[in-house]
């Protein structure tokens, strides 16, 4: 039987999925391109819908909060992990979407 915390975690997981479209408070829409979980922390690579030069690498804090990552070592690790995640998940998402 799952505990309350685990249930909450599952609910939050379902709130972040590849391909989700998020509108941030600046009014811009972003697509959740990649998701990486490390040490119980969830990180996302967002790409702006209208201009894919604009990206955000942030930690999803739950609810509706997102915080940009500013630790250089963590960023370097995340870039590699996002790359792995996209290579792994993208073919499945394409198959699912088309």
């Amino acid at each position, binding site marked *: 039987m799952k505990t309350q915390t685990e249930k909450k975690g599952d609910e939050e997981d379902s709130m972040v999925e590849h391909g989700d479209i998020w509108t941030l408070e600046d009014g811009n829409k972003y*697509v959740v391109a990649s998701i990486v979980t490390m040490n119980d922390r969830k990180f996302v690579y967002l790409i702006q819908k209208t201009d894919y030069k604009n990206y955000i690498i942030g930690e999803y804090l739950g609810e509706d909060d997102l915080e940009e990552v500013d630790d250089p070592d963590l*960023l370097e690790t995340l870039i590699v992990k996002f790359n792995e995640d996209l290579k792994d998940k993208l073919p499945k998402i394409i198959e699912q979407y088309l």
Partner: protein
Amino acid sequence: MTEQEQINEGIRELLQNQSLITQADIEILDNGVYRVKPDAMERVAKAYNISLEDGKEYSLSDVGRLLYEEKKRKEEATLDVSKPDATVTDPSITEDGSKPSSTPVDDEEDEFEKTDPIVEKIRNIVKDAKKNAPYFVNSLVARIMKECGAPKEITYEELGDALQQVHQEGLISQNVLETYVRLVNELQIARICNELGKQYENDDELTSKLSKELAITRLKYRLDMTTVRDGFRISNPGKTRELPMLWLECNEQISWMVGKFIADMYEGRGKYEGHSLRGSLFTKEVLKQFGYLNSDELFPIVSLILPEMEMKKFKAHVCLLREEKNLANTLIRHAEYKDSADTVMQDYVMKTLIETYGVEAVGATINHLKQSKLVLPYDDLERALASMYYKGQKQPRQSSPSEEESELDQDVDQQRKNRQSATNRRGKKKHKITKREKAISSLEKKSVISLMIAAAGCVSAATLVTVFGVNPIVAAKNCVASLASFAAANISLQQILPASKDFIKIVASVATSVAGTISWLRTNSAKKRLEEELEDEEEDLLEDPDRKERGRRR
């Protein structure tokens, strides 16, 4: 270039050669290893004539090493004539397999044959090396030394005389002679140091006298460890293994003794029992004991003992204490730090220079240097001066600023604001998600996939740029080419790729941005840490009587 650097260079070249290997051929394993797929490995092996082990999986590092070893093998083969098959292709061998007793040579060669056999041997080695040009002078000299049996069968002096003779014949250049002299000097010095080191091998009671004795011996003979090491590395390492080993043994011996003494100083042991030194006092004591070692020798040893930030301050102190009587020299040294891109240390040195000499003296010296023929990054020096000058002006001014100074302050202030703004922009910025949607229509789904593919290209290129230092444009081309693997069976890549003819440029720009942000954040966080450290350090310096004296001189 170190072996690892050459291996990395090999990987970079390989990744840039898209006909052999693309991003799609590389798979990242769970343990972070970059595995190269077997079919790509076969292409690489064929192109570079490398043999692969059956069933073995190769990582990118393995490939880099294979390429490096192959390159090294070819270089060795170029100069190696001792192989048995070298005579098989000798055109002078007659049809019946016998070799003519006297190979036809011109008159000049005849004359040489009558000379010293060592001279003749050298002559043959040089001719052979020239036949297989290009060759390294260091390798050639090392080979001559080895094949002539120096110093066991022939002394260095005798070999030197023979080389001199060959040089007079015009067969070898002055450069070869000089290289020989340098190598012999270094070898002899290394032996002397090694002997000295052995004498004290079992002496636990290390004194500054002992370290000084060794260091002075090295200084006396002008031992240049870096040059010797490079010389050995360039020459055939397989054949001259004993030489670098000798060098290493000797160098380690000295480093160990100096290092132990400095560690005692820092940790309050031995002579410094109960008096561990910190900050500028530590630096002064190190220089008092080992000031005759140059920075290239001293810094690596001290860096084993001090934490990273302490090491930065130590370097800056050394620079200042050594050069304090000559501001120009310090500025030149400051410019050298620029090459190492160590902005934290540059700032620290500049800040202390301004405090010690005053901004006018520093500015005037930069101007003076400009008039000289020295090529220095003057813009960077002036920028650092302006930036650090601004920071030094936090306290109330004693006199009202000139108009020029006010303008400078305004400029610097603006720069500071811009930096702060950039920090905020790139820093811990928080966002609120105001709306969440999922793609529903087929058009919207296609658009999402297109964006995700773009993201895959960008992240992949960013990995290559950040981790392997690949050129961003090359990385982008490579990654965009590899996106084809994402095309679904029933849809072409063109239909889902982002519709931009500048796609590669954009991917490259994102990759550069990511790598640049990481680098920028790293420098910025180091600066912040240093600023905190400096506040403690300033208290230290104020207690230093010499420092007060310098202040009075100002």
